[in-house]
């Protein structure tokens, strides 16, 4: 789960930058970089969970 952790961690750093500064560049990074990073990471996590449950014949 290292890849998901890196993507989510990077997005979280951007979010902290935005929350602390409210800079327009931080806002742009939040909308156009951090949000897609969270989505990609979440989708990858769901894929991983589905794969594991399928292998255990739960799904």
């Amino acid at each position, binding site marked *: 789960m290292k890849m*998901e952790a890196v993507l989510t*961690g990077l997005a*979280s750093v951007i*979010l902290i930058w935005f*929350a602390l500064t*409210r800079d327009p560049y931080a*806002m742009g990074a939040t909308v156009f970089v951090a949000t897609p990073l969270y989505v990609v990471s979440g989708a990858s*996590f769901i894929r991983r969970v589905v794969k594991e449950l399928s292998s255990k014949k739960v799904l």
Partner: protein
Amino acid sequence: MSLLSFLTAALAALTLVGCLYLYFHDLRKLRPGKLTYLGLVTVPSLAIYKLIGLVTIGGLPVAVLATANMEILEGAKSVESCSGCHVMQPMVTDMMDPTSDSLAARHYRAPAMQDHQCYTCHAGYGFGGALAAKLEGYRHLVRYTTGLYTEPIRIRSHFDAKSCLSCHDGTAPYEEIRSHAIAGERLSDGRMSCTNCHGMAHPSRTQRTPGSADYERLMTGRVE
């Protein structure tokens, strides 16, 4: 720092801590039988890892994005948010200038308009208007952060007089002016603008052009 900013920062920090845990602990090295003592209960280490993964990757980001987007959408209504982009500074400086005679400055001094002055005039009227203003805000964000703009900036579309009429139409001071009744139809269908009679809303493009006599004063926010 607002409550939403604090909440966003706190949740993002918590997510970051979870990410560090996930990064430095290898899932493959956790044997199924290994147990972790949590003070009151003993649980399988693998279950702990997966639970932290679920909360960090699947749960907390949803909460962080919710608070951050709420902050973006609500915070964008403030004048401070508009002046955060330096190209908007001339409008804000002029608006706050007590000696300015521009439409924006006169509205800013009006007791009826105590906050969100930029947003009130530029958001249109009703749900559709506010939604369009927010989408326009995203376009502004792209252009500002990528540098795809030239000074002086100019409004992309025709300013709709309905934004003015949504407050003024039907009020006694407005109805008392005969020319308003004459111009009413032309104002409604966009053939005429309020600025035709009431003057400029903001400093002119000449004043906002870099190198002009007023540019430095307007950009530094110095009110004379």
